[in-house]
């Protein structure tokens, strides 16, 4: 019997380390430490209900486990074979408990390819990876297939880059393979910069060997002997697990010289990012690995021609690599039956924002936004109304109700005015102001623009200023046209992908929520009640019972009133933080 405990960043932040320790102690107390193994795995994906503990082989799925629950899990489940009912997932609609994750709505529609091992194996143990067909694909490539055969298989599979661009992976490899050089490089882009996306981190934390294996396969196909993983310094756990994985692979002879007894050699090193969104762009990333400022250069030359240290370099993202071993093992024809005509396979999304089931999911391409948000995601938090979903992060756009039935794939999302991006999916409800949302993303872009080209450096700053004026109620109708014109210029003339896509949040909100912009400009109102400069907090006399809860919670002392008397908010002192509204049980405070 195995007790699998989630060791992803989210669950560890909620003390899953202590759960492991306590479970081990309890097992020892019962003399069961040899029969039952406690394993810390990678992310299960269901972060909303973390920390997760899964019992194998019966698949019992415990949610929101606390360290002090360890005793009961061992005493009841392990010793007596009775499930601990209060820790089981409860279906919010049917009000029934579901013990097997397979039957949970969150997992039902998922197909896990890139995340196949996350939550199943101990990522710090190579033997467990090997037990799940790990390094079988590399072995097969080295002993049975020629480099071109491997490339053909990847081309045939239809795999497209999961980092955002969607460029066909097989073709990318082929270009790198065709460029002759004394040294070539294979690079893994693990600089996950999209705020709100955490799939790459979860794969590296939960299944690091999958990425190492795929990079070695890529090295074999493109005739490169060196691999580099460019990873964010902000991901300490992923770095730790990668280091362990690389050491183990070297020890087993799966990295280094004469891999699988052939004359193929390949080794991998880590390079650390230092916090710059633009380094997700290939040429910036390469400059950063060379120790320089991460500024992009004009393509061509593409990295496949002249990349790291001027040598041909193949750059793919973490999730793209994670798909490779499965494609080799199960065949291109298995993989290309999943998904849509032009986007094959699955895509991992990080669901976050105002959604019930925050977490990491993997669905076949072609799944609709409605299925993702309402079936897997469990709908909108607190019974509020769905307003928009932002895909593609700061480079993407806001999609609305009318796009909900669009099958998700690379091309459909672009057509709808957004993009796939790395797979961040932020859900917004009726309380979110779309002008503020656009401003939020522009604030991000302004900070992250590297400053090399002026359209991006200056243009985005101007866009931000226009949006800021509008949210303060100082905008004019002409500003809306100015936003559009400026956006188009920035898109058309920026040097790299950052500037070429940064106006997307503005354009998509202008297209889909024009009325909301107009309300800010002409009525000086924020319909969602989020723009602080356009709101006043007042107490409805009939509803106020004088419980003093609001006055006590107000951080600036803006609320006055005697006990059991109607209270009053001083608009001069009020900082519009909203703490009083959250506290009031009588709906006596409104924002206008």
């Amino acid at each position, binding site marked *: 019997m195995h007790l699998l405990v989630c060791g992803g*960043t*989210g669950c560890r*932040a*909620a003390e899953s380390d202590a759960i492991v320790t306590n479970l081990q102690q309890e097992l020892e107390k019962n003399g069961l430490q040899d029969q039952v193994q406690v394993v810390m795995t990678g992310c299960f994906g269901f*972060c*909303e209900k*973390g920390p997760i503990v899964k019992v194998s082989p019966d698949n019992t799925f415990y949610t929101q486990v606390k360290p002090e629950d360890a005793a009961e899990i061992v005493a009841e489940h392990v010793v007596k074979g009775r499930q601990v009912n209060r820790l089981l997932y409860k279906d919010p609609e049917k009000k029934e408990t579901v013990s097997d994750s397979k039957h949970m709505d969150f997992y039902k529609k998922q197909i896990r390819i890139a995340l196949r091992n996350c939550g199943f194996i101990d990522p710090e143990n190579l033997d467990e990876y090997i037990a799940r067909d790990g390094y079988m694909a590399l072995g097969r490539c080295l002993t049975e297939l020629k480099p071109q055969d491997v490339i053909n298989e990847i081309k045939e599979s239809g795999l497209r880059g999961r980092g955002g661009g969607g460029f066909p992976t097989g073709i990318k490899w082929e270009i790198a393979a065709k460029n002759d050089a004394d040294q070539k490089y294979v690079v893994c882009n693990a600089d*996950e*910069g*999209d*705020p*709100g*996306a*955490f799939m790459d*981190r*979860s794969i590296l934390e939960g299944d690091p060997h999958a990425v190492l294996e795929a990079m070695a396969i890529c090295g074999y196909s493109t005739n490169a002997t060196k691999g580099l993983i460019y990873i964010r*310094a*902000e*991901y300490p756990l992923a770095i730790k697990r990668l280091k362990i994985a690389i050491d183990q692979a070297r020890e087993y002879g799966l990295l280094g010289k004469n891999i699988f007894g052939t004359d193929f050699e390949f080794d991998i090193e880590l*390079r*650390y*990012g*230092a*916090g*710059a*969104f633009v380094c997700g762009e290939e040429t910036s990333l390469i400059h*950063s690995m*060379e*120790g*320089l*400022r*991460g500024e992009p250069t004009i393509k061509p030359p593409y990295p496949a021609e002249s990349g790291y240290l001027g040598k041909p370099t193949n750059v793919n993202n973490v999730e793209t690599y994670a798909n490779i071993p499965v494609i080799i093992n199960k065949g291109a024809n298995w993989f290309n039956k999943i998904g849509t005509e032009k986007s094959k396979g699955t895509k991992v999304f*990080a669901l*976050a*924002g*105002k959604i019930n089931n*925050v*977490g990491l999911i993997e669905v076949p391409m072609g799944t609709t936004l409605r299925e993702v948000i309402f079936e897997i995601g469990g709908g909108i938090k607190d019974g509020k109304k769905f307003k928009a979903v*932002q895909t593609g*992060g700061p480079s993407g756009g806001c999609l609305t109700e009318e796009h909900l039935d669009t099958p998700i794939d690379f091309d459909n999302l672009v057509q709808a005015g957004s993009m796939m991006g790395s797979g*961040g999916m*932020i859900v*917004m409800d009726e309380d*979110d102001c779309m002008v503020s*949302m656009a401003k*939020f*993303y522009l604030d*991000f872009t302004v900070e992250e623009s*590297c400053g090399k080209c002026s359209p991006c450096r200056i243009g985005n700053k101007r866009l931000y200023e226009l949006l800021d004026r509008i949210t303060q109620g100082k905008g004019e109708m002409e500003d809306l046209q100015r936003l559009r014109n400026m956006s188009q210029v920035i898109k058309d003339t920026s040097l790299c992908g950052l500037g070429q896509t940064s106006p997307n949040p503005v354009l998509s909100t202008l297209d889909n929520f024009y009325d909301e912009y107009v309300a800010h400009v002409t009525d000086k109102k924020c319909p969602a009640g989020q723009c602080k400069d356009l709101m006043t907090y007042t107490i409805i006399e009939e509803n106020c019972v004088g419980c003093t809860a609001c006055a006590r*919670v107000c*951080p*600036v002392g803006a609320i006055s009133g005697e006990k059991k008397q109607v209270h009053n908010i001083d608009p001069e002192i009020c*900082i519009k*933080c*909203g*703490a009083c509204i*959250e*506290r009031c049980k009588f709906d006596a405070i409104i924002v206008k």
Partner: protein
Amino acid sequence: MSSIKVKLKEADLNKIKEICKSFDNKEGELINVLHKTQEHFGYLPAEVQEAVAQELKMSVAKVYGVVTFYSFFTMLPKGKHPISICTGTACYVRGADNVLQEFKRQLDIEVGETTKDGKFSLSCLRCVGACGLAPVVLVGDKTFGRVSPDGVKEILEQYKD
């Protein structure tokens, strides 16, 4: 450059030399060198950058260019308990801004500053990837999830002494 002047002690200078040497004094290893150096000193004041430039035989301007380009590098010392508010999108839509404002108010400092007693410093970061716990606040290595503005006081109290 920085307004804070620290005279480098012999031992500090030797530490920098040691770090640079461990990367073969290669210019291309600048970012790795800076990571290690910041790990040791806590921040990268002008003097430290000058010493690194000298060791790697490159201009101080280039080192400064890299230090200021990346958000992970800082030229100001952090407080004893560095507070980082996640302002990634998921935390933003779940109210991170209100939490940030409350920290600013309680500590009476702006983002990037340190309290006078050197106890707390305040910064924002983009996504720690614990979006299920949004909004997230980090104090040192400890993660606090689902933080609301009226929970701020409670967090600070844990670090009072």
